């Protein structure tokens, strides 16, 4: 059974436009798909990184149910490797020295459960590519491998950093469907950063508009995107 993800984060950031203070407070329900969108440099990726523990916030907390991952007051900062998040990087971050199967198997706590690796490769439809190396794969295939790797150990929270931004339209639509299916199946709090209104409308239950480090709008995708004149209902 998955739990709710709570976070309240403050961080001073240096961007191209100068210094900026990132301040967000969000709750993502146990099976909710939430999305951050907004201009580049608004701090969207930093939020995902702070939840995963890859970047330290200046102040605030991150909690998964009753488990505290970060709390600046109590001086708690659980290391990234113990947070059980699945993270999809914009550049996929596949290990070039490992085959598709080895990339996915690397995520296992106990190595050698081949059936589990096969099952997850089946879920994302790339079992036939098991022996290939990442250098030979297309962008869509790479992202599928990254997705399989992130899901291998059934993470508590899934973080997607513009996962489809480098793909062509057709591949995007296909992967959007896969991500939606996977989200339904795993039913865990999922947080995505995206620039693509169609993608946001298709996948997310909640949208947060982030501008200059602050949330300037939130709601159902149709509401928020309609206000911004991005999607006409």
């Amino acid at each position, binding site marked *: 059974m998955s739990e709710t993800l709570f976070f309240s984060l403050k961080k001073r950031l240096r961007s191209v436009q100068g210094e900026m203070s990132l301040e967000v407070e969000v709750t993502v329900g146990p099976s909710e798909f939430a999305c951050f969108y907004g201009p580049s440099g608004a701090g969207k990726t930093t939020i995902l990184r702070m939840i995963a523990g890859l970047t330290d916030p200046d102040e605030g907390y991150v909690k998964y149910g009753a488990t505290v991952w970060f709390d600046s007051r109590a001086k708690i900062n659980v*290391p990234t*490797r113990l947070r059980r998040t699945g993270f999809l990087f914009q550049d996929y*971050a596949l*290990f070039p020295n490992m085959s598709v199967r080895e990339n996915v198997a*690397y995520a296992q706590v106990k190595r050698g459960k081949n059936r589990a690796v096969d099952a997850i490769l089946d879920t994302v439809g790339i079992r036939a590519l098991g022996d290939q190396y990442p*250098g030979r794969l297309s962008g869509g295939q790479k992202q599928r491998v990254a997705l399989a790797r992130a899901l291998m150990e059934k993470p508590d929270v899934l973080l997607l950093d513009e996962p489809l931004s480098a793909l062509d339209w057709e591949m995007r639509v296909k992967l959007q469907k896969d991500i939606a299916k996977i989200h339904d199946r795993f039913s865990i709090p999922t947080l995505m950063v995206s620039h693509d209104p169609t993608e946001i409308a298709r996948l997310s239950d909640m949208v947060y508009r982030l501008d200059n480090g602050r949330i300037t709008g939130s709601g159902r995708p149709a509401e928020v995107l309609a206000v911004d004149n991005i999607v006409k209902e």
Partner: protein
Amino acid sequence: MVYDLEPLLLSLKLAGVTTFVLFMIGVPLAYWLSRSRSWVRLPIQVLVTMPLVLPPTVLGFYLLLGMSPASLFGHLFLKYLHLRLVFSFPGLVIGSVIFSLPFMVNSVLAGFEGLPPSLAEASRVLGKTERQTLFHVLLPNIKPALFTGLALTFAHTMGEFGVVLMIGGKIPGVTRVASIAVYDEVEAMNYAAAHLYAGILFAVSFAFLVLLFLVNRRFYRGIQ
């Protein structure tokens, strides 16, 4: 005419030992440099790179002073390890390690810094420790840099002259390496022997660099 192959064997031995020692020191040092944000990072990186720009005689002179039994370092070595560093093979190894430090450390450092940060981050997110990340993700993906460090260190040590002469002199069988033998033979107008040593040094260096380029080309083809 019988040629004395001892200087060549000594050069090979020195290059082999130096390369091994430098690999064991250089890889952890390069890894630390690639991750450290401490203020000491800069001075250490400068010190590591200094042998590239210093005249070998300057480095050799300071090493000679530092290793002499009259200095603290040389004295401690002599007292506790019973090793006399000046004009001895162990001393040559220490000098060579310091002299070739930038060839190993900077090559490996460039390898670490050339990797996308997301690789190590992905490994951490997948629940792996720093050690697991280093051995399973980082090191296997910088093989060309590791091999470059090894090949350059070996070839560079084979051709070392100034530092070796300063701290080792030219004691046959102990410190008279091939590069010094070339100089000696030329001084003695014995050009045939000089040709032999010089030609073999040239061929070994050439072969090592060819091997380096071939191996690295194969690696990059393999991951594409």
